[in-house]
């Protein structure tokens, strides 16, 4: 410890000594130091003089009485408990709202296929078509004439579905004339000319690739979304009801 910092440490002890709050070992150490350090003795005298000046300052008289002219409403213990409860409700509402927003975000991303590229869509479509062909050629029995399945493939399909597969349609440009040969599949660039994705879902095999969408029931996400909405709404209503009469006194 340098001489300067040691001296500053003793100056701090002098301040406490002057205020009469230094005791025990600190006081003994200071007295021992004062017996050998003239500058600290001077410091003590100066600090005492400053303290005397400050303490000689009289309190200013008050310009008037501050007695209360009327009794304002007091914050009772009940109010305090209510305030704490209200705060916890506000936190719960905020949390529920965050969860709700997160669930909505996840739901939107799932429904819009967030992150999927057109190339991925086309590859999925190609896979579905290939599966469909295999099913038709290997596994599926020849439909009887007039059956519903046969009707759906007998050229009576809606035009909106078949238009993309017309001989001069954009989807068939790269296909071979022989229907048994799948030939080249559309490139990602070609996908821009396809009909809407909804129409593609009607194609054989495509629906099977979208099983997570067409299972007919409610997913866990939907139930979570519904629960979060209800909780948020209930909490928000409670908070509004509690704060309707104004903020509790603090």
């Amino acid at each position, binding site marked *: 410890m340098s001489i300067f910092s040691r001296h500053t440490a003793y100056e701090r002890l002098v301040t406490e000594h002057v205020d009469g709050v230094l005791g025990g070992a600190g006081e003994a150490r200071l007295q021992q130091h004062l017996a050998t350090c003239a500058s600290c003795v001077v410091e003590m005298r100066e600090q005492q*003089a400053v303290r005397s*000046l400050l303490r000689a300052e009289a*309190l200013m008289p008050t310009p008037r*009485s*501050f007695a209360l002219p009327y009794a304002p409403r007091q914050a009772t213990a009940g109010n305090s408990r209510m305030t704490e409860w209200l705060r916890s409700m506000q936190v719960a509402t905020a949390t529920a709202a965050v969860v709700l927003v997160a669930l909505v975000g996840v739901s939107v991303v799932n429904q819009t296929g967030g992150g999927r590229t057109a190339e991925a869509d086309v590859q999925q479509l190609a896979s579905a078509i290939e599966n469909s062909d295999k099913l038709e050629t290997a596994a599926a029995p020849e439909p009887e004439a007039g059956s519903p399945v046969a009707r759906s493939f007998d050229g009576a399909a809606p035009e909106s579905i078949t238009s993309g597969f017309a001989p001069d349609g954009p989807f068939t440009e790269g296909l071979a004339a022989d229907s048994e040969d799948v030939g080249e599949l559309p490139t990602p660039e070609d996908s821009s000319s396809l009909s809407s994705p909804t129409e593609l879902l009607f194609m054989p095999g495509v629906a099977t690739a979208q099983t997570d969408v067409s299972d007919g029931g409610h997913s866990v996400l939907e139930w979570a979304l519904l629960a979060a909405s209800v909780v948020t709404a209930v909490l928000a209503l409670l908070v509004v009801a509690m704060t309707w009469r104004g903020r509790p006194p603090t």
Partner: protein
Amino acid sequence: MPTPPSEPASDQERDWAFQARAGNLVAFNAIVERYQQFAYNLALRLLRDPSLAEDVTQEAFFSAYRNIASYRGGSLKSWLLAIVANRAHDLLRSPARTRTSSLEAYTEGGDPGGPWAHPDRLPDEQAEQAETSRLVRDAVDQLPDNQRMLITLVDLEQMDYEEAGLITGASLGTVKSRLFRGRQRLKELLRPVWELSLREERPSS
């Protein structure tokens, strides 16, 4: 006359606080009368504006009455002054606050000796006392807010370190450190004054 500082709440004060909690305004106003001078002086030293200090003191007593249920015993004076200090501190941090010159504000409308001058003293002594007071107040006003608050509490209001720490929310070490730095600064600012007083004490040396 204010009571001696830094005492735990007396039986009478506890009784007043209990009655005030039950809605007895007379009992609460007895507390106000006892501590209003300390409260006003703390606000005045912190804000350096008599008008603002008056407002803050009144608001603090209203707040104290509204929240008397939160008083858990201990020093009633410390509890009240903490409310005053918090309100004054909020105002100090408010950007909209306009600070006024301390000297003009303190002496505004007062007699030449100021309202703090001792009535028993001769006019010359009163003038000298008033001048010394002006210099001391001016020097204290130059301190940073946190040092000024502690100098006010410990030296003017004569509270102990622990109570000053409770009121300002500072640790004991911080109280000591700020007091030391504040006193060192005041020692430099008031050197002509205390040197004169030291010479008067020891004319032969």
